[in-house]
């Protein structure tokens, strides 16, 4: 099986969807001639032409609204928001129009928004955010956060098939750093089905996106201390695989939740609340959360390192929970 970077997996998946289904097209800023700010759609314009690879004006509202309108007429648009931070400009289109259309009008809005997210490269407050939690609060949206190249491709195919608005958060810091085996053939990965990144018995660690790798490093470090952590990669937040977390906690009785988004009202709070509601008697320790502090994403590398959860933060929390 060929090895591909996370970015290549997304790019290959996109191309495969466009070859498979002529209803699929991409639009966004600089996606055509330039091939996308991160080169995810490099070469697409030549293969699919200017009406399936649409260089849009700098207009996030028109990009998302245009996607919604074309989806209502039977197409399957995939809109690239150059950085997930910029989806703020199109909040109304996502939350007011697309998310509510099926509930109130009975008309599906099958759009995929590709949202390059996350920090770790001094992108500063406007190119580094992980805004996925905010959108989990909006009924009608599906939220996808792949961590591996294999999942990135399979979840993208599922997103294109899904008749609902799907927000696909692709972590920029994984684009070229992460490489793994990815099948050439098309495959889908169901939404709402978590992946066990690492099996363990002492502590359950729930996370997603780039934090899966931070979690894995911390768990590896704790292994030598005799602490066995089970890492659950949720893969999708809406829907999310509560059953997988409950099953793991039934075994470990301890839960650590890790995310790169800020702490207050981050999706970790929802996971913690539901686990307390449904598994209180199985818990042998308070649920712990590790998340970014409640600040904007800072620019300076030393500040950003203090902002993004680090391996030693996670290792420390795992150790404390194991000893509790």
């Amino acid at each position, binding site marked *: 099986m060929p090895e591909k970077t996370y970015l290549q997996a997304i790019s290959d998946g996109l191309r495969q969807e466009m070859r498979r289904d002529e209803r699929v097209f991409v639009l966004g800023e600089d996606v055509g001639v330039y091939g996308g700010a991160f080169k995810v759609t490099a070469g697409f314009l030549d293969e699919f032409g200017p009406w399936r690879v649409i260089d849009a004006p700098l207009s996030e509202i028109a990009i998302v609204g245009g996607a919604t309108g074309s989806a209502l007429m039977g197409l399957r648009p995939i809109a690239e928001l150059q950085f997930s931070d910029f989806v703020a400009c199109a909040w109304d289109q996502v939350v*007011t129009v697309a998310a509510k259309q099926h509930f109130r009008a009975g008309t599906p809005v099958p759009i995929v928004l590709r949202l390059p997210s996350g920090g770790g490269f001094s992108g500063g407050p406007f190119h580094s955010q992980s805004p996925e939690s905010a959108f989990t609060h909006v009924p009608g949206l599906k939220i996808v956060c792949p961590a591996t190249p294999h999942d990135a491709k399979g979840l993208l195919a599922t997103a294109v098939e899904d008749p609902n608005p799907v927000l696909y958060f692709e972590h920029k810091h994984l684009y070229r750093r992460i490489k793994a085996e990815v099948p050439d053939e098309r495959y889908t990965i169901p939404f709402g089905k978590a992946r066990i990144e690492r099996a363990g018995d002492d502590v359950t660690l729930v996370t997603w996106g780039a934090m899966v790798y931070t979690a894995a490093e911390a768990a590896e470090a704790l292994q030598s201390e005799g602490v066995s952590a089970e890492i659950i990669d949720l893969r999708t937040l809406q829907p999310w695989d509560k059953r997988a977390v409950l099953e793991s906690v039934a075994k470990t009785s301890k839960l650590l939740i890790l995310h790169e988004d800020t702490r207050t009202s981050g999706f970790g709070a929802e996971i913690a609340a539901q686990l307390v509601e449904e598994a209180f008697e199985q818990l042998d320790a308070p649920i712990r959360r590790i998340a970014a502090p409640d600040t904007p994403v800072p620019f300076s590398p030393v500040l950003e390192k203090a902002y993004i959860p680090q391996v030693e933060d996670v290792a420390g929390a795992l150790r404390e929970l194991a000893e509790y």
Partner: protein
Amino acid sequence: MAVTRDTGSLSSSLDAEQLGLDRADLLSIYRDMLITRGIEERGHILYKQGKIPGSFYTGRGNEAAAVGVASAMRPEDAGTPLHRDMGVHVTRGVEPWRILAQYMAREDGPARGRDGNVHMALIEQNLVAMVSHLPAMMPVAVGLALAFRIRDERRVSVCWYGDGAAARGDAHEAMNFAGVRRLPVVFVCDNNQYAYSTPPQLEYACANLADRAAAYGFEGIVVDGTDVLAVYSTAKQAIEKARAGGGPTLVECVTLRMEGHAVHDDASYVPRELLEEWSKYDPIVRFRLWLGEHAQAGEAELSGLEEEVKTLLAEAQERAENSPLPDPNELEQGVYAEIEPPQGSPDA
């Protein structure tokens, strides 16, 4: 404003035959205008009787603009009508009883009680249900046109907005994108001179909103929104131009909002003399006169039509009042659409 308007019959010297409208078409347009106003008059009463929850908006004074544009569309064309555009739904064939059921939050309203007033549309009529954030529908309307262009279909999207919506950034992004890509979309600005209480001089600084079209590289036309044939003629040309690949047009239909923003609003901020002046240009009265003068429609025929519409709406109201209330047990259904099987070839 570059619109001449007569108080009597329609000022347009348009020949109905030249417009491609036969007598039956003309009477059908008149009927749709009557139904539009009739539904809203009944709705107003139902609201005061407490039978319509929430708020209630009318498009009084906008009947010619809405019905005129909708009559110029083909069934395969699509659009995003707003809350003064009841006439669009009526013209495209939404049954009046379902509209009244919608207002009364019943199961048979197109939104099945999940959304109110004119927040409704039947997608099988190629209409998209509006949201309250009115200009947010503009990029969606452009998206409809984008789909037509991508598939190379001879279909046109109609994008409705108002003088208030024109002030929002969505309007700019929608028109700019449509202009850049020469998409088959017609922007119809219902300029009824008031955005809630805000008059034109506080909403925009250009002479006409249609002037803005030049900035996006297409034509803008101001039309008397109380003259249904002038609206029809202008809209028809714009729609057919778009269909032929000529790109967008902005059609500004100038009217006056003859009632409050919604029925709770007495519109005391609108000068009485302005309302009195515009009451002389009632679009239905004007078209009725024209039909008598130019379509040999006699008093008996027109009265008969008016009685027929009254009966239709009385029956519609009864049927709507008998529509069941939505079932609270189904509230959580339909937030998400169900997965459909994938299309296309399985191997890439």
